[in-house]
């Protein structure tokens, strides 16, 4: 379905902010390729 709508899942570094501090994780997010 993502292909059909022109979107593609991509790995992304995502920043997380907690009261103890910030860090990053690798997640999947789709980008608009249209």
């Amino acid at each position, binding site marked *: 379905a993502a292909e059909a*709508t022109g*979107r593609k899942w991509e790995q992304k570094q*995502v920043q997380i*902010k907690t009261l103890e501090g910030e860090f990053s994780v690798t997640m999947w997010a789709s980008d608009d390729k249209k």
Partner: protein
Amino acid sequence: AKSKSVIPIEGFDWGQYVGANNLVGAPVSCFKHVPMGNCWGDLEEGLRVEVPNTDTTLSAKVYWVATIVKLTGFKARLRYEGFDSDGNQDFWCNLCVSEVHPVGWCASNGKPLVPPKSIQHKYSNWKAFLVKRLTGAKTLPPDFASKVEESRNYPFKKLMRVEVVDKAHLCRTRVALVEQVIGGRLRLVYEESEDGTDDFWCHMLSPLIHCIGWSRSIGHRFKRSDVSRKTEGQTEAPPQLFLKVKDVDQSGEWFRDGMKLEAIDPLNLSAICVATVRKVLADGYLMIAIDGSEAADGSDWFCYHATSPSIFPVGFCEINNIELAPPRGYTKRPFKWFDYLRETRSIAAPVKLFSKEIPNHGFRAGMKLEAVDLMEPRLVCVATVTRIIHRLLCIHFDGWEDEYDQWVDCESPDLYPVGWCQLTGYQLQPPAAQTTRE
């Protein structure tokens, strides 16, 4: 034709309704005409989001990560991370209405993630917990909110003039003015309506509305208005805003007056009836009459395009095991097309003239949705897909008898995902209770 009365919405909650009965909503991607309908395919259960944390004693607004555990149309059942398999604190929200963000939004906006109070002591190292839970998981696209906003722009504006079917005489059109636009649905007030109450609701992509001049261009009957002076601010809706029909070649073998076919009765959408082509118009349009219930002056003929998914070749109902409504007054049972054609000295419209396109629509029997009651088109009701014949869906209105069911095309702009009314601010008609029906 039977139509429903308005039911007050108080007390109806899609989340509760779906949850209590373990129901499935048709996915947003089934509805290309709704906001996000063309870019919803990415969203699925298991996706992580950042949402406000309502289980906290902190005075500042804080957020936490949640997982979509069930997706029903626009509505998602969310579970805060850390509750594992405990669904007692789950909550429903509309992904396009509520404050739901991609993971990473809080850090970009300087908002802290704080675990819910009731599980705060469950883990000593929340950072390690989040890294483990989020690494490799999916989240919303970063442009989700802007896409939602973008897809909620509708080109029709108040005071635009259109030609629309005359609801009192289906055979003709009238000029009407756009009075209201809600979620792409238009409240059209017929020109000459003194008090503005003579109105008609339809979606902006409805095949029942056209640009000014359309009727004249194809030879359709039209009720001329006696309005001599237009109010300031009125404009003609530009032709490019309307539904496009496929070009057809009428120069070869084509529909002719008197040809028989099967058609959805526009005055009783639960019935597919024996019908006749009464007049061939330009650009592929046809005037159709339902056999046996035709007014002598042709005032109940109605216009379908030759590519319409609401007209079928002779034999369609029999092949697909659908009850065909025989002409009123025709008593020979069972109805046999062969005999009827011979007795009426008519011929069937050639099968090759009908559209055979079947989109990969994604609807399944049992799916819930919000559907317009086409007999009372200002009402959008809680409904279920009960039967699917190729591209044709049988829509049942929850709580109402089957006689109110309607046959609707899978690409109809009168069908919406669960949560569409909430998203657009349109009033939803909940399932009827026995007492309301009476």
